[in-house]
């Protein structure tokens, strides 16, 4: 698959601060790529360099065959992290205006705006002013503004931030729709669950450096399975269970602890559970968990990403 975007040894420095270091990765054409990393990892700086809004201090960026994002700006759609639209404009006018800046005739822009607003359930708000719309509605309008010209490459900077679960789900559908129509989507987020559900590929950034590049499954594979144990169990007791290689205390309330016990490659959870009962450990909850992207993120970056409470973790095997 050919690459829609390639970064080779890209760095960005602001004075004494090194925001991005020697970053290289590829985004295949037609894929959805998650650009992950904690706050301040350098995601926004990288996206701005890809767009050509800021030059890279070093390295080379190729997007849609051009070495400068500004040369292909009409073929790119961009949703910035902090959103804003002209408050006194109607959604249709705002969408048509931003579309026109990308070369879409105003009349065609208005027509598409009406269609897309209807499709997103915003038909009734077409004639309202932007300031009268709710935050979720305004974000949808902004996303429509960034894709109304049917771009080949869509860059979304933290598109899920500030959205309620229902609107997050709607946005996920929109992103899938864009990819289904052939667009390449690169979106940044620090909420792993969205990336886990949407992405063909993820690039993980930590402190300005690439920590991982690959599929979601490959990312998960970098972390080992683990047991989550709850009860009056001492960490050294858990460490003696078969297949357990290390224990971390998640919480401790008056001696009732939640422990995370890392499992060796090929070890079976059932053997550990059996040993726990045989040795008479006070186990109130026992859970064998496949590593999630969230876990991989922690392992790879040593940082804890934000957890979206509205989304349940996947790959659980629970025993009580």
């Amino acid at each position, binding site marked *: 698959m050919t690459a829609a975007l390639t970064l080779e040894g890209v760095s960005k420095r602001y004075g004494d601060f090194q925001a991005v270091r020697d970053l290289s990765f590829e985004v295949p054409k037609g894929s959805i790529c998650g650009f992950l990393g904690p706050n301040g990892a350098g995601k926004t700086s990288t996206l701005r360099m890809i*767009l050509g809004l800021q030059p890279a201090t070093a390295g080379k960026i190729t997007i849609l065959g051009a070495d400068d994002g500004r040369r292909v700006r009409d073929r790119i759609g961009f949703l*910035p992290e902090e959103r*804003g639209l002209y408050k006194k404009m109607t959604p249709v006018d705002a969408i048509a205006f931003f579309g026109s*800046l990308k070369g879409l005739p105003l009349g065609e822009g208005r027509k598409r705006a009406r269609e897309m607003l209807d499709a997103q359930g915003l038909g009734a708000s077409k004639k309202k002013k932007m300031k009268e719309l709710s935050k979720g509605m305004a974000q949808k309008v902004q996303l429509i503004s960034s894709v109304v010209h049917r771009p080949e490459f869509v860059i979304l900077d933290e598109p899920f931030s500030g959205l309620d679960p229902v609107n997050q789900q709607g946005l996920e559908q929109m992103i899938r729709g864009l990819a289904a129509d052939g667009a390449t989507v690169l979106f940044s987020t620090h909420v792993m669950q969205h990336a886990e559900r949407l992405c063909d590929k993820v690039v993980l950034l930590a402190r300005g450096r690439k920590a991982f590049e690959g599929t979601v499954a490959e990312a998960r594979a970098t972390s080992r399975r683990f047991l989550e144990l709850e009860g009056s169990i001492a960490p050294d007791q858990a460490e003696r269970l078969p297949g357990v290689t290390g224990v971390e205390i998640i919480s401790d309330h008056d001696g009732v602890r939640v422990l995370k016990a890392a499992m060796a490659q090929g070890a079976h959870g059932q053997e550990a559970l059996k040993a726990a009962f045989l040795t008479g450990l006070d186990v109130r909850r026992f859970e064998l968990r496949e590593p999630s992207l969230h876990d991989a993120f922690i392992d790879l970056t040593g940082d804890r990403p934000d957890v979206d409470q509205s989304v349940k973790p996947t790959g659980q095997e629970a025993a009580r």
Partner: protein
Amino acid sequence: MNRTFLIARREYAAYAKTVGFWLSLLAFPLFAVLGGALPILMRTSEPVRAVAIVEEGPAAQGLAAAIRESLQRDADRQAERAREAAEKAAKSGAPTAQPGMANGALAALSRPRLRLVPTPTTITSVTGEAQVEAVRAALSEERPKAERLDAVVFLTRKDGKPGARVWTARATDDTVEDFVRDAMKTANRQAVFGAAGIDASVVEQTERFRPEVTAYSPKAAEGGQVSMRDRLPVFIGLGGGFLLWSLIITGASILLNSVMEEKSNKILEVLLSSASATEILAGKVLGVALLTLTVLVAWGGIGAVGLLTTVPDVAYDIGQVLVHGGLIGWFVAFMVGGYLMYAVLFAAIGSFCETPRDAQTLMGPIMMILVVPMITMQMAIRTPDAPLVTILSLVPFFTPFLMMARLPSDPPMIELIGAMAGMFVFVLLMVWVSGRAFRAGALSDVKLSWKSFGAAIRGGGN
């Protein structure tokens, strides 16, 4: 459509579609008309004060007559002025419908401010404290309006010199006091001259004498005699300078607020992903320039219609000066240069700011700079060759306003062209500097300061 024009169009529509824009656009001519009519309205609405006079004792005899004569002289003088004004208006060829209106205005301005009424016997029949009480009662607001007095004047003569005690209903109203003072001065003058053997009529004639002074200049249009037509360029230059100043400040301020709004709403980043910083800056500057042009055309149109319907000769003369004197060409050139110079600078400052408070750091010194031409412009009209005026008019920041004011005095062509060239070179520099600062400011979260602004210019936002 070109991105610059699309941004300009949006910028123009965003303001031109608001009611506030049209209200403020029409407010200036409306207030100009109101400003002209205000003195007439004030005089018309001013009450004619009812004044009673009392001569205190035999020594004061004749002073009441002096007051009456003074009042009559004022009325004669006003009538004479009204007649002269009417004659001038007739000579200027104003339409026949207008003299009636003009006469009405003149009549309003010529109204006497006070009238003498018979002194109530309640005041003249008593003395001392009782008289003071009677005066208080006559001036009291509780008295029916028709019977109430506005002032009571007690005329006295001390050591042979006339004097007066003036009781007024309102402590703040000194109209009667001033009038009586002038009348007493005149009475004293006549008495002194009379004692010196000079006839009163001679004194009066001397006071009425108004010398005819005619101004001549080699630069005057006809026969060397300076006419209103010759002085018109001076007024146009001064007016043009002030107009330029207000339009440039208005336009640049609109631009500053517009960029600040887009910065605070995070629209600038979206725009930057769709257009270059240069296209955005140019589009915004062009859009606001079209707004300013709309204001100029509207004000000019209203002014032209107003002049053509009331004083067509003056309108024709103004047209002559603007077209044949070439003032209109210079005006346009200075307008373009001045607007560009300040507009790009204000836009660059706006790109660093999210609130007007953020902008204050840089706006303070700039506003101080802008006050200089306002102060110097009047000096430029009277003494266009003064070294201070000449030097300041060559400073690009002041050139558009001061050169506009100097133009009617025919400054040396070398200075004019030099100042114009310097201004446009400086404009190019400002466009370059502001473009770099705008690019940096649009994506920056750095607080605006001279240091950050300078760093942005040096680094160009990268």
